[in-house]
Structures are given as C-alpha cells and as structure tokens.
C-alpha cells in the first residue's frame, strides 16, 4: 500500500485543513521532523525554569499560609495564595490551548502527534491543584525536544525531570542503608522504579521480577527534587553498593551518572525496543497491529540504538502503516484539534478564549468525552482502544460539542456542503454528503460532518 496524502494528514497528522496542503510524501514529513521546531517557536510553551508561578513560589505561599494560621496575617497570606493558584490555573489553561493551537496550525501535524504519543508514554499527573500547571512544562522540557532525537536522551530527561520525580514519588525514596536512611529509619519507595520497568522501558512482559524492581529502586536512590534547586542528587540518600537490574550490574558510585548510565543501558535493550515498537504501532495504526510492522519498528530501534527519527521513518516506510482500513478513532483532544483545524481557526482565536469559554468549549467537553485535560487515571496514560472512547457518554460528548462549539471559534461557519470535502477529502460517504445537505442549519451540518465515523476514524 503506497503513501496516501489523506492518510498522512489524518493517521500521522492532526487532520485535513483548508489552509495547509497534506504532506506530499513520507520523506518530506521526516525532513520537516528533522528540521527546526517552527511550531513551538511560534507558539511557545515555557519549560519548568520559566513557568509562572514557579514551583518555589507555590511552595512559599503555601508555607506562608500554614505558618500564618491563627495569626493576624492569616487573611493576607490566604489571599496571596489564592492569587498564585489562580495564576497557576490560567497558565495551565493557556498552555492546554496552545497545545491545541499547535495541532490546528502546524504545517503537518506529525511532530504534534509524536509529542502527544511520547508525553503519554511518560505520563505525569498533577497530584494536587498546585501542580496542575506543571504537566505542559514537563512535556516542553523532557519530551518535545527528543521526539526526533534519541530515546535514551528522552528517558533520562523524563525520569530525572522534577515533575516526574515528584509524580512517581522518587523524592521520598531513600536507601535504608544510606546515611539518611540509617538516621531516619525511612526507606525505599518503589513507585518510579516499577513504572520505569513496566511502562517506560522493557514493558510489563519484559521479563523483570520483583527483585529487579527493588534493585532498580535502590539504584534510583539519591535522585531527588527541590522546588528551588530543581532536580538534585543527594548522595547521603543513595543506597550503598552496586545494583543488578535484569542481569546487568551497574556502578556502585553514588552519583547521578550511575542513574543516567543505567537508564541509557535499559533504554536500548531488545525488550525496550519491542515494547516501544508495539506501543507506537498500536497508537498510530491499529489496536492489533501487523506483527511485521512491529518487528520492523523494533529492528530499526535496535539498529539505531533508539534513534526516534529513524523509528518514525520506519513507521512511515512500512506498507501496513498505509492500510486503507481506518480502525483507530481520534482521541478526544485530537478530535477537537482536527475539528478546529478543518475549520481553519487561527491560533489566537484558540489561545485567546476566556476561562468561561474554555470550560464550556474545551475543558468541560473533553471531560465528558472521557479525557479530562492532563488527568488520565494513572501513569499508563490514555487508552488506545476505540471502544473506550466511543461509548454512549463519550459519543454524546462529541455530538454535543460538534453541534454547539464550532461556531464559538469562527466568525461564520463554512457551508456544510463545502466543509464535508474540507474535512474528509474526496472520500466522504454518500449518506453523509446527503445528510449534510439536508441539515436545517450550518451548525447542524458542520456537526454532522464532525460526528461522522468518517471524520473520527483515522
């Protein structure tokens, strides 16, 4: 099955657009991916170093409030904290909208799709309201710069990022035999070690045991985080001695290089290649992917020691990737992005909406569709199964959005009879073309196009 521009734009991009032509061939898509990240330059999302409010600021105002309890300053510290938390909420909203605007206005959406895929692979979730605005900086720092780079670099960046260290509780873990462990009687927290093996690296069928998880947890001791300093290494927390994880012995030296060395080594194991290859194929092509596609992705991963530009190229090289069967369903965030892209909504119309419109037309609907923004249930991220999303409730959420929200983002809705071709290309099913013509209003017609299986399946 040859390259198909429609599939390139939908299965590997953020959808068809009246403004941006679909990619001309796979080489052009890979060349763009290898080139500069123009979209991020045009629509920036700050990393942790410059995010406002900073984690240190959030910590300061929270501590000040606790300290002031029962004193005359209580009211004032309370008010300051409310302002800072409101700023955090605005930041989260703005960055969520910027992420959507990137997908809507990117020349081709491959980098956006890969960023979403890898951000999901290394899912972080805010544990409380003061961290809600830190997910997008994590993606900006640890994921996006590496989607066309090395998987090992991404693993190191993600694992040692303050937001991951916080989310999977690495900052609480210390070696029971370490100085600090001996002094306090505290010990290991296995959370990050387990998810690294199970989700990020070799996968749940990667052949590791509980002993490997414990060894990995001991190996990670010392890795920590401080709101002011960022990622830190606390040698006094590190479990003494060398660790053996999945049959390989890692350095006994108590410093960060032991951790990054082990991560880079695990990142290029064949089990990791197989796990990542399978996930990529499932995400982009099918819940039950062609075994040969998976094998060829894993082989390219191994041959290039995890060069993700090469692995993405291998995906686009394989005939199974271009199967005309559209068995995947757009995830709610991608559904919304693709809809706004087909409507040619300019970036500032998206990023500029106020909080109320955000709740009505973005945040609220995504929740009803089953995807509350940046809040999957656990570190395994969002489901890949079409049936998870197209439930009565999830579909009701999509229908409701498609009928009512598009008009909020454009001055005038397109003629639905044109829009059906814009959104779907020449292959719109006859019954859809007919239904669109029979709709009572432009809003209904546009809604029918967006709710059609032909639009939602990629």
């Amino acid at each position, binding site marked *: 099955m040859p390259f198909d521009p429609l599939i390139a734009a939908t299965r590997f991009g953020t959808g068809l657009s009246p403004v941006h032509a679909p990619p001309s061939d796979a080489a052009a898509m890979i060349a763009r991916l290898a080139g500069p990240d123009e979209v991020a330059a045009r629509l920036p999302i700050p990393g942790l170093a410059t995010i406002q409010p900073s984690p240190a600021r959030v910590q300061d105002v929270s501590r000040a409030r606790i300290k002031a309890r029962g004193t005359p300053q209580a009211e004032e510290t309370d008010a300051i904290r409310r302002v800072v938390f409101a700023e955090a909420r605005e930041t989260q909203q703005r960055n969520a909208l910027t992420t959507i605007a990137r997908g809507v206005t990117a020349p081709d959406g491959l980098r956006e799709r890969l960023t979403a895929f890898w951000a999901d692979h290394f899912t972080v979730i805010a544990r409380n309201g003061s961290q809600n605005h830190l997910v997008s900086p994590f993606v900006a720092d640890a994921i996006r710069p590496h989607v066309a780079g090395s998987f090992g670099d991404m693993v190191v960046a993600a694992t040692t990022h303050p937001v991951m260290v916080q989310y999977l509780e690495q900052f609480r873990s210390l070696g029971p035999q370490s100085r600090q462990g001996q002094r306090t009687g505290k010990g290991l927290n296995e959370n990050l070690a387990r998810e690294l093996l199970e989700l990020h690296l070799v996968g749940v069928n990667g052949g590791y045991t509980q002993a490997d998880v414990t060894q990995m947890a001991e190996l990670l001791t010392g890795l920590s985080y401080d709101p002011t300093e960022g990622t830190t290494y606390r040698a006094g927390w590190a479990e003494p001695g060398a660790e053996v994880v999945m049959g390989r012995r890692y350095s006994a030296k108590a410093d960060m290089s032991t951790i990054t060395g082990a991560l880079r080594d695990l990142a290029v194991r064949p089990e990791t290649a197989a796990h990542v290859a399978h996930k990529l194929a499932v995400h982009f092509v099918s819940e039950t992917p062609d075994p040969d596609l998976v094998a060829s992705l894993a082989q390219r991963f191994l041959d290039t020691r995890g060069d993700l530009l090469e692995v993405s190229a291998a995906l686009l090289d394989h005939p199974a990737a271009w199967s005309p069967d559209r068995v995947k369903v757009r995830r709610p965030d991608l559904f919304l992005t693709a809809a706004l892209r087909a409507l040619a909504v300019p970036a500032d119309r998206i990023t500029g909406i106020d909080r109320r419109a955000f709740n009505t037309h973005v945040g609220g609907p995504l929740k009803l569709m089953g995807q509350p923004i940046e809040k999957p249930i656990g570190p395994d991220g969002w489901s890949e199964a079409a049936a998870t999303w197209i*439930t*009565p409730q999830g579909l009701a959420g999509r229908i409701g959005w498609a009928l009512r929200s598009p008009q909020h983002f454009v001055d005038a809705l397109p003629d639905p009879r044109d829009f059906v071709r814009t959104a779907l290309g020449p292959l719109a099913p006859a*019954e859809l073309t007919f239904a669109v013509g029979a709709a009572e209003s432009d809003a209904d017609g546009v809604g029918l196009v967006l709710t059609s299986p032909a639009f939602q399946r990629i």
Partner: protein
Amino acid sequence: MDRRGFLLQGAALGCSLAASPLITPVALAAGPWDNRLVVIVLRGAMDGLDAIRPVGDPDYATLRPTLNDGKATPVSDFWALHPGLAPLLPLWQAGEAGAVHAVSTPYRDGRSHFDGQDILEAGTLRIDGGQGGWLNRMLGAVPGMTAETAFAIGQDRMAILAGPAPYLRWSPEVTLKLSPQVRRLLELTLHEDPLFRNAALQAVAIADGLSVEAAMQDEGGADMQMEAGRPGAESALARFAASRLREETRIASFSINGWDTHQNQRVGLERTLSRLSDTILTLRDELGPIWQKTAVLCMTEFGRTARENGTRGTDHGTGGAMIYAGGALRGGQVAGRWPGLSDQALFEQRDVMPTGDVRAAAGWVMRSLFGLDADVVSRVVFPGLDLGDRPEFLL
C-alpha cells in the same frame, strides 16, 4: 438539496427511518430478578489492614507504628474500623455492613495496579482482554438480559462490565439535546459503523429516560433543591446508580479512585474512606426499601504491605479486604479466615497472606442474589474458580 428532497433521498438510500433505533423508543425489559448488585471498584489498592484493623492481633501494632493511631472504632474484641468508616457504624450494628478479610484475586508478585485491576475486573488471570469482565460474562450466562439490566456509571473505564453482553454506561453530568431532524440525520450518518451506531443508540435511550425523569422531578416541586451541601462526585454516582436501580437496572458498577497511599496514609486514607462511607450511605438513603434487596461489594486490586514504609505509607501488597453493605447480606462481622501477621504468616514476609479468593466471595453473592448455579460461577463467570464453602456473610 431541500428538505423534501431529503425524505425522497432517504428512501432512495434504502435506510428505513421508520425502523430507526434512534427514533423508536427502546423497550426496556425488566431484569430476570429482583435483587440488586452494586460493585464498587476501589482503584489504587485499598489498605485493608488499615481500613479494617486487626487491633487484637499481637503483631499489628509493631507493623503499624504510626497508622495505629488509636482512633479506630472497635466492632469486636479483635477488629476495629478506621475513622473514615465510622459513619458506617450504624449500618454495621444493624447487620447491613461488614467486611471479608485476607482476600485477594489470584494475582501474585506483580504488584502492578494496571495488571491488578485488569485481573480483578476480568475475574481471571488471563488478561488479554478477549474475554471481557466478569460481570459481563455473568450477564451473558443468564437469559433474558437487556442492556438496561446493567449500568457502568461515571467517567472511568469499567472493564468489569465490558464484553459482548449488552450493558449501559453513563455519567450523570451528560445531557444530549438533539432536534428531531439532527436525530434522523445522525441515524443515517452513524448507521454503517456498528461502534458508533450502538453507542449513539444507547446514548439517546439514556438521555431520553433522564430528561423524562428530570421533567417529572421539576413538576414535583423544589424539594430536590433542599439538600444540604454540595454532594461529592461519588455521591452523584451513587445517586444516579440508585435512580437506575429503582427502575429496571439490577447491576451497577462504578469506581472510587485515590487508594494508592504510598505516603502520609493517615490523611489520604481517611479522606478516601470517608468518600466510600458517603457513597454507601447515599445508596442506602436513595434506594429506600430496595436497600433490603441490595448487596454492595467494594473490591480492590490488591492489599498493601503489612509494614509501613519509610514515608508513613504502605506499598503495593497482596492480601486485602472487601467491604460490603446492603440488606441482602449478613453484616456486622469481619468474615474470612485471618492468617495472622507474624513474619512466618505473611506472604513473602511482606504482605497479608490471602486466605480466600475475593472472586469466591463475589461468586457466592451472585449465587445468593441471583440464584446462579455453582457451575455457571466456576466455569463461566470465574473460569476455574474453586468456590469453596458457603461463606458466613450470606443471608
């Protein structure tokens, strides 16, 4: 194309609108029994040892230096309820709430939430997803089921009900307002894709039912507004579940998250157990007389380590507890066989040793409530399960 053309064209496309499931009211037959089963999945692994504390066990206090805070409510010489479960004490004393201790699924050693929940909901160690959830297999094994018989409620994935047997899924906050014309056209555009068609069919049926109910309540006056305080998300789920269970629905399932208490468990678990208590009390209040025909099972993927960890929490373990409630079960007790907490008694010297299979507890409840054959339970619902002896918490 004009509106008149639409009708002609519709006929030409061979799509019989008169027979459209989206515009024909769906007949909702009653379930084949009168009893109700509510399964609440506690995602994140509830620490059974802290929820239902064996304060009479000689090793308990040593293992739990900070969690044993002396604030538990004794319910026997040996057992005490976590403060977060104290609101359930009146139910407990009335024999309408209890627990089964030292139970687990057959999952061992992996201690992964995701696998643990998959096994709990699949009801079997095989979790390739092909066989659906155990509540779904139960539905498939009994003739006369309709989609309305079982409801998965809320925005979480409920794998426990997934599978080929029809069931409904809804979240209380969804509404679906469609003009008659859009309804007809959607029927047309979604028709060829079964996934979309079936989801839309159910969505419309549920939304129609809800709007009728809401209209009736509006006419009934403003007393619905009298509730004190804003109900939590779980109370809304419980309220919605009860509204369905008062009608045709016989099985409802939803989840409560937030049990993964790796640190500072005293604060975290109290909050989550209070939400569970609220949920159970809401079900009791909203179900009225039907509460006497109801069994509520609160199941979790596994227990937690017997020892506190270094961060005043507990890590992933094995044996845990199932909390239950409802007038259709015999409460006021901690059932199950207690293995003790000495080093030798622990599983891998680390976790509470499971002495019972939580699936057997659920299997016996289904036998008791729905009259299922032992054979159906141990071959179809939970393939290969040894049901064991009839437990003491059945009526």
